[in-house]
């Protein structure tokens, strides 16, 4: 019998936890209970970075992590943090189901783990305390919290804002007191993270669509028979399909709830933002590790 641990940093009722439980159930059922997966939610086993290390060391077998966390383990994942490489949600799913994904699934094999499937984590957009963002000029002089990633820092710089790294847990108070003028995230940050209580403008410039990946350690893979591996792979793909509906619903609800909280939502023209970050894209096109993959994504 194979027993595995699956770690998810998000809460129990987050769509990803819901479908990962379904994934675990499906695997158990189809392998007649020979492969059982125990789900740990809420980040109880550690941050995404820690869990990836645990994956390399055999304490955890499967985990859902953001591509942003993976880029510190393998630079090829930086490509997903680049702004405006996907047109919209449909384009995202189309490209991610194609050869791009299978390339990156295999990319980390040397690091001890491999990809099973991807999840959409939504489009990231700016939210601010004092004014809606219509053009990149509106970002001028604004201190914007970004995630700890060089790509995100460069992106905000190119758009004209002032990137300000802060731990996620401090964003609420920092917005409230004006330490920062805004941040960027998908709409659930406004509702579940309650940032919408203080940031009253959400501008859907949709600059990034950083996918999450479900990754499994090589060791765990090797513990299973070929047939079981196939079942796991298939169940993972089913999870992605089930997730899309749940996640879209969650995003819709988050936007509606945000409006209810008094957040004004606007849709700026994306073109000027796209032009502003073009130098970053060009720079990565010349990069040896990321270039070919980027070419593949953008040219499709």
């Amino acid at each position, binding site marked *: 019998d194979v027993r595995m641990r699956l770690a998810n940093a998000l809460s129990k009722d987050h769509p990803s936890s819901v479908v990962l439980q379904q994934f675990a159930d499906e695997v158990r059922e189809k392998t007649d209970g020979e492969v059982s997966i125990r789900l740990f939610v809420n980040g109880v086993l550690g941050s995404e970075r820690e869990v990836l*290390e645990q994956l*390399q*060391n055999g304490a955890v077998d499967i985990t859902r992590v953001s591509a942003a966390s993976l880029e*510190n*383990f393998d*630079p090829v994942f930086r490509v997903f943090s680049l702004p405006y490489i996907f047109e919209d949600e449909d384009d995202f799913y189309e490209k991610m189901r194609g050869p791009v994904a299978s390339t990156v699934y295999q990319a980390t094999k040397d*690091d001890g783990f491999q990809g099973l499937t991807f999840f959409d984590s939504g489009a990231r957009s700016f939210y601010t305390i004092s004014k809606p963002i219509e053009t990149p000029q509106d970002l001028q*002089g604004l*201190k914007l919290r970004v995630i*700890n*990633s*060089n790509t995100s*820092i460069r992106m905000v710089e190119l758009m004209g804002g*002032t*990137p*300000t*790294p*802060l*731990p996620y847990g401090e964003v609420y108070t920092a917005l409230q007191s004006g*330490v920062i003028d805004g941040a960027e995230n998908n709409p659930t940050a406004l509702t579940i993270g309650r940032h919408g209580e203080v940031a009253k403008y959400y501008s859907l410039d949709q600059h990034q669509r950083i996918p999450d990946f479900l990754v499994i350690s090589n060791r765990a893979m090797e513990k299973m028979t070929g047939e079981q591996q196939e079942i796991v792979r298939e169940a993972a793909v089913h999870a992605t399909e089930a997730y899309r509906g749940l996640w879209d619903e969650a995003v819709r609800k988050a936007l509606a709830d945000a409006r209810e909280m008094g957040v004004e939502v606007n849709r700026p023209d994306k073109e000027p933002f796209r032009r502003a970050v073009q130098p970053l894209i060009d720079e990565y096109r010349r990069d040896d590790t990321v270039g070919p993959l980027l070419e593949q994504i953008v040219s499709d």
Partner: protein
Amino acid sequence: MLSFKRWLERVLLVLMATMLIAMVCLMLWQVTTRYLLGVPALYTEETLRFLMIWMALTGAAYCFGTNRHLALDLIPSLLPEKAGRVLYLINSVVVLVFAGFVLLLGGWKASLSALTQMSPIMQIPMGYAYSILPISAVIIFILQILNVFLIMTGRLRLPYAKSGAGEL
């Protein structure tokens, strides 16, 4: 031998205090660059975290040497001298096993395996940050063994406070 121990401890103490002062300065610099200059320094957050980790583990080694770790010495302090020495020996073995496995072996492996993992902002291999674990383990070994030797030969008093009040 006692003078070597004192010297090593003094070096550690100077390093710890220096790192603490550097941390205060860096944090104030972070506030200054963001609030007064309007251009937040990007490297301070990561540097501060790594400095704190290094300070804590350097300091942990110092505290093993000088018996400053928080401990409950109520029962050991009630024991007669001889039994106290035996207990000290047992406790030292526990410390050495702990340091040998968790900090030295585990830390060494973690440092090696994290060499290819980069820190998000400064792109420093995480293995460098981890390397303080085995370094501090080596110092703990030196200091703890010196302590055992000095206590067994009666050149140092048992650390279990007769007053029962922990020293802080």
